[in-house]
């Protein structure tokens, strides 16, 4: 009996050693891939960082208001962030590639799914970036216009513009990522529809005078805001 146990053990151990020996090269390959991947990812980060510095990406993102956000969150600058993100994405890709070399079933599928998903993430990030940029720009433009034409509640208008654009951006991002896209789309449509309806009612009933004033200032510029008995001054 002792011999049987020893035999079984020996066989089992040998099996294990054999399996391990078969597995070892694959592990080696994976480690090599990971190492090479790290180097490449680092290169990508470095190149991307140089490019972004060249096109003054920081400045652009300042315009988007991203800089302020990042500052508040104690994150590094946009250039740095994007470069590091690129590094991690690249390296993760290589890691996954490496793990697929291990030949573990089921991993392949996850790996390929990841690589299919990746471009969409990048596109979504683009949308988000430019959407935020636009939201910030147009909300500020609306604010300045409202202040300079003496409209009431300019901040409200500015925020409304920012919210609208942000919602639109968010729904575009979600759709791109494929996360509950139809829900988001529907929600967006409902929100937009409600806002429009509300504005129409407000203008039509409640805001008659405001509407008239708005239209007048837009389409009948001869009627100035100067009251009766006032004289005209020209800044130039």
């Amino acid at each position, binding site marked *: 009996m002792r011999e049987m146990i020893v035999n079984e053990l020996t066989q089992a151990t040998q099996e294990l050693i054999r399996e391990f020996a078969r597995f070892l090269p694959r592990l080696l390959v994976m480690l090599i891939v990971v190492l090479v991947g790290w180097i490449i990812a680092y290169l990508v980060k470095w190149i991307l960082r140089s490019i972004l510095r060249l096109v003054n990406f920081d*400045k652009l993102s*300042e*315009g988007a208001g991203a800089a302020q956000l990042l500052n508040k969150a104690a994150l590094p600058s946009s250039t740095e962030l994007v470069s590091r993100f690129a590094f991690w994405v690249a390296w993760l890709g290589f890691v996954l590639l490496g793990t697929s070399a291990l030949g573990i079933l089921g991993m392949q599928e996850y790996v390929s799914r990841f690589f299919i998903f990746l471009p969409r993430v990048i596109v979504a990030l683009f949308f988000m970036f430019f959407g935020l940029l636009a939201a910030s*720009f147009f909300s*500020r*433009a609306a*604010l*300045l*216009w*409202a*202040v*300079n034409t*003496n409209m009431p509640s*300019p*901040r409200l208008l500015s925020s409304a513009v920012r919210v609208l654009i942000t919602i639109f951006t968010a729904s575009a991002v979600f759709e791109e990522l494929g996360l509950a896209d139809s829900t988001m789309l529907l929600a967006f449509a409902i929100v937009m529809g409600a806002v429009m309806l509300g504005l129409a009612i407000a203008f039509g009933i409640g805001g008659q005078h405001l509407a008239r004033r708005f239209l007048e200032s837009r389409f009948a*510029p*001869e009627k*100035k*805001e*100067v*009251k009766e*008995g*006032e*004289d*005209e*001054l*020209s*800044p*130039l």
Partner: protein
Amino acid sequence: MSDESVLTDEFLRQLINVGEADILVGVPTYNNAATVGQVVQTIRAGLLKYFPRERAVIVNADGGSRDQTPDLVRGASINDAQVSTDIQALRTLHSISAEYPGEPSTGTALRTILASADLLRASACAVISPDSTTIEPDWIERLLRPVYQGTYDFVTPLYRRHKFDGLLIRNLVYPMTRAFYGKRVKEPYASEFAFSGPLGTHFLGQEIWTHEAGRTGTEISLTISAITGGYKLAQTFLGAKPHVDARSADLVAAMRQTVGALFWSLEPNYQLWSSHADSQVIPTLSPGQEVTLEPLRINRRRLLGMFHSGVAELEPVLKQILSPPTISELQRIATLEEDEFSYGDELWARTVYEFAASYHKSVISRDHIVQALAPLYRGRAFTFLVENRESTGEEVEQNIESFCLTCERLKPSLVELWNGRK
């Protein structure tokens, strides 16, 4: 962009027929049929009276008017193909009109006029605004004679205006142009001015035409270009400033054309403006009474109201542009009662300088920076109106002069801001 692109084939053909000119008067138009007829006839009378022997041409750069503007301009020409008139003229006088390509814009129109002057080799040129209803024939003499004689290269006008007219010029554009560029040009944004042939060629070679800011604020960019180019400047008194219509009373548009272009010009000319601190007088030819004092009723309160709303509502924007001490100072004066309110010289100068520095650094979109200055300017305008309510012409001039000196004094702070912190 090459010169030829502003001259259509038709325009070029007309220029070939003119050939060469000694004097060129340019009139940029867009739907000005109400006033341009009278203006062009007056220009013609001036040319016939003061330059009867010189080869003169009136060049109209039109943006695509749908009214009778081009025909009215052409009607001023004198040639032998016409049925004989009573006009005593030694020579043919061409009065040509053609449309420039693209959308109507003063910048393109001026560029077309400059190109015409260059091709026709005119020695003395003038630009007259088509709504100068107060123009007299002797404006032609006053503007062009100093240039034609070769004494000066660039002649800007001086007008008889109400002491409260042209507040933006008096409170911002003139003092700043003077402080930055060192020449006391009282009307740096001129709708009538004269320049010499060589200066015109210099203008054409500038960067103005390829940048949005330059194209919007062409008039002041040309003035700055004449100053930085070291040309001989003078100003001459003309007469009453023409009454302007509502469109040009839009403050933001006016600021884009003046302040926007001014700030933009600081970039390439940094070496020039940062290296000196004082300013020089430029000769005033044929002086005249510049300030009239008829009583005007102005709604000052609205100005102050817009200042308040500007400071309050634009706070997040202003925080990106101005330094904290300046913002808090502004917020402080915003709390003052109307009769105590005062937007002082030093604060205003600092405000503008900080705006200039922020513009240079593009802390936010540059156009937004210019727009953000508008409500603050209104506060300053209010102060000016209040302080000069009872003033005479001389006192107004003195107040403006002291503000200018303040600007000059504080200029080094701008240089610091430009280079350093923030």
